């Protein structure tokens, strides 16, 4: 089985780069190839060396579903991983950075989900890496924990670190990354700054209609000449400029269709991914073909 095929990309020093795609797209395999933990055919370089030969002092990794020794405290965990390097940051400063100073002496298994992920992130920061790989850093944690991780990554990027993030959360990629690469079926289907990709492939702005009788709303809007975005579980009207939202509301009112709300939005990376791959990405990261219920 070929997990990656024909992928070609480079990440510049100090850049935040996102690898986006659903589960099985090849993100983790690519990270493993780039960090030298799996073999891959082709040319790969990390810090000017073969990945397996790159200076580990300069590389940090947070693997997907990383589970460190659960009976160690946050402080002991950071000290443990710090002890594996020739030089490491002080444990206290790392815990402070990830917001765990107050929970430093709590054993890992007693931390909350968000705290656990931040403790894991701390183990990737302890050697003060120049290049940091974060494989699905916020999967499975609550929104508050996710925002805390985002702030940390922002701070790292501001400090000049090169950060490679894999994620199936499009919002996360837009928020964190200077450039993103969209992976599907092991292939890189597009690459560039999120805004450029959205501009080139995202399509027109749209309005999401929330109505009890969705079929009636669809009929009313179709009768008024509107088209719909396919692969959506909600009723989404395509190509509606902000000043035209009122016309959508009028079309529904004229047909006697009640609605709970109209939500206008610009296209985002989700639309880009859908346009380019024919797939949407589910909330838990699973791929969903266009037209699936």
């Amino acid at each position, binding site marked *: 089985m070929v997990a990656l095929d024909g992928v070609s990309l480079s990440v510049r020093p100090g850049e935040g780069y996102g690898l986006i795609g659903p589960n099985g797209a090849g993100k983790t395999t690519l990270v*493993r190839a780039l*960090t*030298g*933990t*799996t073999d891959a055919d082709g040319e790969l370089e990390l810090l000017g060396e073969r990945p397996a030969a790159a200076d*580990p*002092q300069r*590389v*940090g*990794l*947070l*693997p*997907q*579903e*990383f*589970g*460190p*020794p659960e*009976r*160690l405290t946050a402080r*002991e*965990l950071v*000290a*443990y*991983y*710090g*002890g*594996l*390097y*020739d030089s490491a940051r002080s444990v206290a400063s790392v815990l402070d950075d990830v917001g765990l100073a107050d929970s430093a002496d709590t*054993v890992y298994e007693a931390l909350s989900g968000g705290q656990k992920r931040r403790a894991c992130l701390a*183990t*990737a920061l302890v*050697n003060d890496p120049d290049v940091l*790989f974060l494989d699905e850093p916020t999967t499975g944690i609550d929104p508050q924990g996710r925002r805390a991780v985002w702030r940390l990554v922002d701070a790292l990027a501001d400090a000049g670190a090169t950060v490679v993030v894999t994620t199936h959360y499009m919002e996360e990629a837009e928020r964190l990354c200077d450039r993103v690469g969209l992976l599907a079926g092991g292939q890189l289907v597009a690459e560039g700054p999120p805004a450029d990709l959205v501009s080139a492939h995202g399509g027109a702005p749209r309005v999401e209609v929330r109505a009890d009788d969705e079929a009636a709303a669809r009929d009313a809007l179709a009768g008024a000449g509107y088209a719909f975005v396919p692969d959506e579980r909600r009723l989404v009207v395509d190509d509606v400029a902000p000043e035209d939202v009122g016309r959508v509301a009028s079309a529904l009112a004229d047909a006697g269709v009640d609605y709970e709300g109209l939500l206008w939005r610009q296209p985002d990376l989700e639309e880009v991914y859908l346009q380019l791959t024919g797939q949407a990405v589910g909330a838990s990261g699973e791929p969903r073909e266009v037209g699936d219920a």
Partner: protein
Amino acid sequence: MSRLRRIRSEAVASGKAFLRRRTAVFFTFFFPAIIILIFGALIQTTGGSGGLFTEPPGYYVSGYLAVVVLFTPLSRVGSEVARHRAGSRFEKLATTPLRRWEWLLGQTLVNVAIIGVAAAGILLLAVAVAGASVAPSLLLVPYVGFGVALFCGLGAVLGRVADSQDGVVAASNGVALPLLFLSETFVPPSLLPDWLPLWLSPLTYFSRGVRAATYRPVETLATGRVPGGVAPAEGNLLVLAALAVGFFLAGAAALPRTD
């Protein structure tokens, strides 16, 4: 210094993690104790009457020690490998300066410390409860060290081969049980078929050597000879040391880089 720092960090973390698993700690020490209580105190040995457990109590001391030297590292390291695989820890460690053999050495040192304590307790129990006569010997230290290293290596291999922690437990029991009873520990070779290749079991060299170092029947003391059929303590130690190096290297090579 960096290498020592890495090995020390691995050993300290592993030791703390083990000591906080209270059930594991309890049974590490309870298991050999119950063996001594059953075989040494309840069944009791009847020297010279023939059959199982008929040698003098001192004969079985090497078997009691073999229990911890065999079972604990095999299951502990195997389980640790399984836990590491489940938590993608090897993938992370592969991006640090820690080498695979350093990881295994860190684990081995912890096991040597734990089993060293357990072995001391076993010796005391064997003397106090089973009435065993044990000749003091410094050779016990390298015997325990090499024995533990050997089975840590084998545990790492099992951890690589088995697909889960449950699998490791089953595999280590499946390997350890026949080894324990077919390595001249509790069953003398005279009671086993001649065709059985006892020399194939690495534990045989441990039990033979420890017995040679610590077991002094009256007739042996009188003549100064080593009991018949048991190789000299030093010779078995050399074989055990060579096997330990081989198994350790095999275990280190078996450790995965990706989980």
